[in-house]
């Protein structure tokens, strides 16, 4: 059974509104773009805060699964996540940067968990009774590949958002020189 945690009803409504406006703005509706700017200003902090809550709670659950019952590992992972979060988000992050950072940190945690799981299973000293069946390993391997791809894509998104939202010049000048 796979039950993903969800945003509260009110936040879901706001999120739906933002998605609708973004769809229309992307299709070229200038009025929707104006409304989107206003709606983002009003509801983005709340949606980001709720999603970040889900991320933090989820990270704790995943950490406790990954650490088994080892409290030292659990504590070490929590500290590591805090350090990563501070390093990736940087000083004075925007709410969007905070959200993207949470996503990156969560994906890193899953990448590490699956890597550890695989390396334990591939260890030749593992007793046969603890060895997982091939079907299980195949599933974890596919999952590991997909999570690694998503992790790299999330890093790329954050870099792109920072570049596009920074004050880098947005004009492009092309110079043509004709040589005879």
């Amino acid at each position, binding site marked *: 059974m796979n*039950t993903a945690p969800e945003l509260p009803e009110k936040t879901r409504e706001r999120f739906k509104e933002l998605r609708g406006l973004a769809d229309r703005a992307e299709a070229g509706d200038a009025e929707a773009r104006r409304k989107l700017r206003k709606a983002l200003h009003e509801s983005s902090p709340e949606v980001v805060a709720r999603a970040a809550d889900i991320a933090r709670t989820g990270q704790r659950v995943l950490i406790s*699964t990954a650490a088994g019952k080892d409290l030292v590992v659990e504590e070490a992972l929590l500290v590591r996540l805090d350090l990563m979060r501070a390093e990736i988000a940087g000083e004075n992050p925007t709410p969007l940067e905070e959200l993207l950072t949470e996503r990156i940190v969560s994906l890193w945690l899953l990448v590490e968990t699956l890597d550890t799981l695989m390396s334990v299973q591939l260890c030749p000293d593992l007793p046969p009774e603890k060895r997982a069946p091939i079907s299980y390993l195949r599933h974890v391997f596919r999952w590991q590949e997909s999570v690694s791809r998503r992790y790299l894509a999330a890093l790329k998104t954050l870099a792109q958002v920072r570049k596009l939202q920074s004050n880098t010049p947005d004009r*492009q000048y092309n110079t043509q020189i004709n040589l005879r």
Partner: protein
Amino acid sequence: MNGRVVREYVGTGAIGKTIALDDELKRLQKEEEVPRWREERECLEQSAAFLQPLAKVAEVLTRAHLLADGCHRPKGQWRRRREHRA
């Protein structure tokens, strides 16, 4: 073997019986292991389930912020709209 049932003759008498019992034991152990590993897999998947809503919100909000900031995505690649010089 390769999805096919293969019969292998191992002999008769006490040796044959011992090998048959050993095979039966291995089969039973395998049957017992299946639910345990399925449970393990489900536990891990459930622990990582929060990534789905997180990805959805991050994707939509990134798109919304970039659009509101005047960016567009002409060929799947986000770019700033060019400023028209007056």
